[in-house]
């Protein structure tokens, strides 16, 4: 135990926690926007897998992380178009159609991986701030600072983007016309419709935002791990959906949930690698976030009300 409680190990673990939280955060923030508009997307995990493969393959072929990010975003957008048509225009039951998206993503990403790559070839990992070409040197002294170095500066750019998105999504939902429309169609689509807000268009755009961010979440995951394999996400997308409830549909609380998952995972892996806890205890600890989430849902369910029209399709008649 004592080797864990040294300052450097604790800060290194926290630094890893922050990085682990990023895929959860991207996916859950996107899902927040979708759910605020009244649409549950349970297919996040499948979209993450497809986006993750797209990014991995792009980096494998071109060695460009920028193209990796673009691939992830594009795949997410494409899947959003599919899910938008299915839910907004065809009124499919959302919990189940999401499972369809998930299964498709699970199978198709594996199919593409086996067909195009076959063996898990590693890619160049996502560069940290001080490893960036050209400007990396500027950040080197910052990364070497005690405490704030590993905590704040020793990260890749996508990590910064993810945490900047928290205030950005809050602003989008609270201060912009689009955000007000999103909340209106999520709460009372009939009223919004009678005021001239297009429910279909608002929900469709919200789905596109959510799905694109899910694609980016998958891209971040595969590029951070610098690998792809079958079912790479191992349920991260499903947890991201739960984090939205856990965070009571508020971006900052969603972020808190994502960080909690990051901390629990990073601590468990660190303890195990330091032989502080045996494998068995690590397996038990891996249950903790899911159990905590269930308990949080029990506590929150009676206190927090979600968007009133969540999962309800809208039609004028």
């Amino acid at each position, binding site marked *: 135990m004592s080797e864990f409680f040294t300052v450097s190990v604790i800060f290194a673990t926290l630094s890893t926690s922050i990085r682990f939280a990023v895929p959860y955060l991207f996916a859950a923030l996107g899902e927040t926007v979708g759910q605020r508009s009244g649409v549950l997307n349970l297919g996040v995990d499948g979209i993450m897998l497809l986006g993750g493969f797209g990014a991995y393959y792009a980096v494998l072929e071109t060695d460009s992380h920028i193209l990796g990010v673009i691939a992830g975003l594009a795949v997410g957008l494409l899947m959003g178009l599919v899910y938008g048509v*299915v839910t907004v225009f065809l009124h*499919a039951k959302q919990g189940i159609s999401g*499972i369809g998206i998930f299964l*498709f993503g699970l*199978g*198709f990403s*594996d199919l593409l991986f086996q067909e195009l790559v076959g063996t898990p070839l590693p890619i160049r990992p996502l560069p940290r701030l001080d490893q960036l070409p050209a400007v990396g040197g500027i950040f080197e002294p910052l990364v070497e600072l005690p405490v704030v170095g590993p905590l704040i500066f020793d990260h890749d750019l996508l990590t910064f983007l993810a945490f900047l998105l928290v205030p950005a999504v809050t602003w989008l939902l609270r201060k912009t016309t689009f955000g007000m429309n999103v909340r209106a169609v999520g709460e009372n689509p009939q009223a919004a419709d009678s005021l001239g807000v297009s429910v279909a268009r608002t929900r469709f755009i919200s789905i596109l935002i959510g799905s694109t961010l899910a694609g980016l979440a998958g891209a971040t995951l595969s590029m951070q791990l610098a690998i792809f394999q079958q079912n790479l996400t191992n349920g991260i997308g499903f947890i991201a959906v739960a984090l939205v409830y856990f965070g009571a549909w508020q971006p900052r609380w969603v972020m808190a949930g994502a960080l909690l998952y990051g901390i629990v995972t990073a601590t468990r892996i660190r303890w195990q690698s330091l032989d502080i806890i045996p494998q068995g205890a690590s397996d038990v600890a891996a249950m903790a976030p899911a159990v905590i989430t*269930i308990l949080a849902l*029990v506590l929150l369910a009676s206190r927090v009300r979600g968007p009133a029209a969540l999962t309800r399709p809208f039609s004028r008649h």
Partner: protein
Amino acid sequence: MKRLAGGVVPLGAAFLAFLLGALMIIALGASPADGLAAMFDGAFGTTDRIAATAVRATPLLLVGAGITIAFRASVINIGGEGQIIAGALLSTSVALAIPDTPRIALIPIVVLAGLIGGGIWGAIPGVLKAYASVNEILSTVMLNIVAIQLMNFLLRGPLIDPIEVGTSRIPQTQRLTDNAALPTLVEGSRLHLGVPIAIVAAIIVYLILFRTPFGFRLRAVGHNPDAARAAGISVEKNIVSALSLSGALSGLAGVILVFGSESLRLVTDGGSAGFTGSAGFNGIVTALFGGLHPLWTIPSSFLFGSLLTGATELQRELQIPNALAIALNGLIVLFVVSSDRVRGWLDTRLDRSMKARVEE
């Protein structure tokens, strides 16, 4: 006419999905005719393969019948994977504890243990939904994760095969007693007792849902909870019952996956799909395709079982990854759930043309 549209649309959805599948096979550089032939050969080519297809269909049928109960009560059960694992863990533990029990007693005991294990894993989200308003989609997904980690913990620790402890530490139980092995029905083939058990279970589910007051109440709650409540039906109790029964059937699938396997032991690869073959999710596809009717789920499960065994042959013969089957299942779900509205449009069109004809 409405009945006609009802049957035609899911078939149309499946046809569309298979059309896309054929396109994928073309994109992968093979001919769809060869692909279809390989799949058909893989699923039905020999008596052994037909038996393998039936065995593959068994967990899908049980999970699908369970999903049908839940969906009929308007409860969405995404927790099939966890419930399969819970049933498998409890029944395996029981078989390890009382290995010398004669077969005639042991098989019913492990079946009961599986029903109880899965039932408990289904009852938890049921109680949480009924009495704490916790969304069952989320709680079942979370309980899948808990079940997987519980399996990893037990198979790496308390339940690990003693032979593995000092050696490679493969996370698996020891080979279970032959007394618990599901007997094969046709000598030399893999067709085992699990297949008729699942079919009987589906028929019982049909009788419960459509021929008993209990089933009527379940469906009433699913149809209109407010009306059901006004009629004096306890919505809460029926939600718990629906999810418990649904979980119990998945738990039974877990029993059959363990005690019908050739290795006769429970093995984990760290996730759930290695053991369940994603039956917890594929069972949803099976149930939807069976029109949420327990009897139609029987042929539906056989269809999806043949898709899975066929995909194995597709991989062997044409080097097309069998992940294609999972992708197709996803597409079928999307098409089937999207078809409700299309069916609505078809019905209106049919009604109108009928009216026009009558007026003429």
